[in-house]
C-alpha cells in the first residue's frame, strides 16, 4: 500500500514498521495493514492467550488498549515531517460492545490535530466495518518526548 499521502512517506514507512515490531506488539501479533490517506490500520488475530474473560473467550481490554495506542502512534507518524520520538500522554477507551471471540480485531486511527508539541488522535476498533465499532479511543502524544531517537535512522538501509 502506498504512503504517498503521508507528510513524509519515508518516515511513515520506517516508523510504521518500527511500531509494530516493538517487542510487546510482536507478543500480541500486531500486523500493519497499510495507511489510506493518513489513517493507518492494524490487525490483531484472536488468540486463546489474549483472552480476558475465560467464561466468554472475549479478548482482554488491555489488548484493545495496546492496539489503540500503537495505531494512534502510527497515525502521528503519518503526519511527521521528519523523524521524532513521541510518547503517549493520555489515552481513553470507550468499550462500546464486547469483541466477538474468534474474530480478528482491526484498528484504524487518525491524527486530527498535529500541534507543535502535542498530537491529538482518535481511533476505532472493529471486526467487519469501522461503522460498527467495538471500541473508540482518543489519545494525546507528546512530540519530541526524548532526545534519544526511537529509530536509529542511520541503521536503516
Amino acid at each position: 500500500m502506498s504512503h504517498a499521502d503521508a507528510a513524509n512517506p519515508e518516515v511513515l514507512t520506517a516508523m510504521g514498521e518500527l511500531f509494530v515490531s516493538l517487542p510487546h506488539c510482536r507478543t500480541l501479533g500486531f500486523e500493519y495493514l497499510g495507511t489510506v490517506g493518513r489513517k493507518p490500520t492494524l490487525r490483531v488475530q484472536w488468540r486463546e492467550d489474549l483472552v480476558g474473560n475465560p467464561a466468554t473467550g472475549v479478548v482482554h481490554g488491555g489488548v484493545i488498549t495496546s492496539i489503540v495506542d500503537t495505531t494512534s502512534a502510527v497515525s502521528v507518524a503519518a503526519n511527521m515531517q521528519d523523524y521524532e520520538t513521541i510518547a503517549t500522554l493520555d489515552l481513553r477507551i470507550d468499550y462500546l460492545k464486547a469483541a466477538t471471540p474468534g474474530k480478528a480485531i482491526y484498528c484504524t486511527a487518525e491524527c486530527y490535530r498535529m500541534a507543535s508539541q502535542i498530537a491529538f488522535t482518535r481511533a476505532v476498533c472493529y471486526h467487519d466495518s469501522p461503522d460498527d465499532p467495538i471500541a473508540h479511543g482518543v489519545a494525546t502524544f507528546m512530540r519530541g518526548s526524548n532526545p534519544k531517537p526511537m529509530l536509529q535512522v542511520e541503521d536503516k538501509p
Partner: protein
Amino acid sequence: MSQFMETFDRLRDEKRYAEVIAAVPYARLMGVEFGEGDDGELLFSLPFYERNVGNTTLPALHGGLIGGFLENAALLHLMWGRESQEAPKIVDFSLDYLRSGRAQTLYARCEITKQGKRVAHVLIEAWQEDRKKPVAVARAHFLLSAGS
C-alpha cells in the same frame, strides 16, 4: 454462574493468587502477580519482561501494556471484594502517563471510589521504585449487572 466464576470464587476464598492469574490468559501472558500488601490491601506487580517493551532504545514498557496491567488490576480488585454471578464489564478506561515505565517491576494499587448497584468507579495508580513518583494513574468504570 459460569464455571470460571465458581473457580474464581474458590481461588479467592483460598487466596490462591497465582492460580487466579493463570485462569486469565492475557494476565498470564503479561506476567502479572498479585497478593496482599502489608496493610492487607491488594498489591499488583509486573516483573520486567523483554516481551513487554514498547521502546527499545530507552528501554521502556509499552504504553498499551501498562494500560492492560492497570485495567486488569482494577477488574481483579473489584472482583476480589464482590459476591457476584458474573465478571464486571469494563465500560471506559482513562489513563494518564506520567513517566516512562523503566526496565523494572511495575506496581499497582486500586481504590474503589464508588460501587453502586449497576456501576463501579475504580482509581488505579502505578509506580516503580518510589510510590511518590507514579508512572501512570488511571480510572475505570465497570458495569456490574447484566442488562440488555
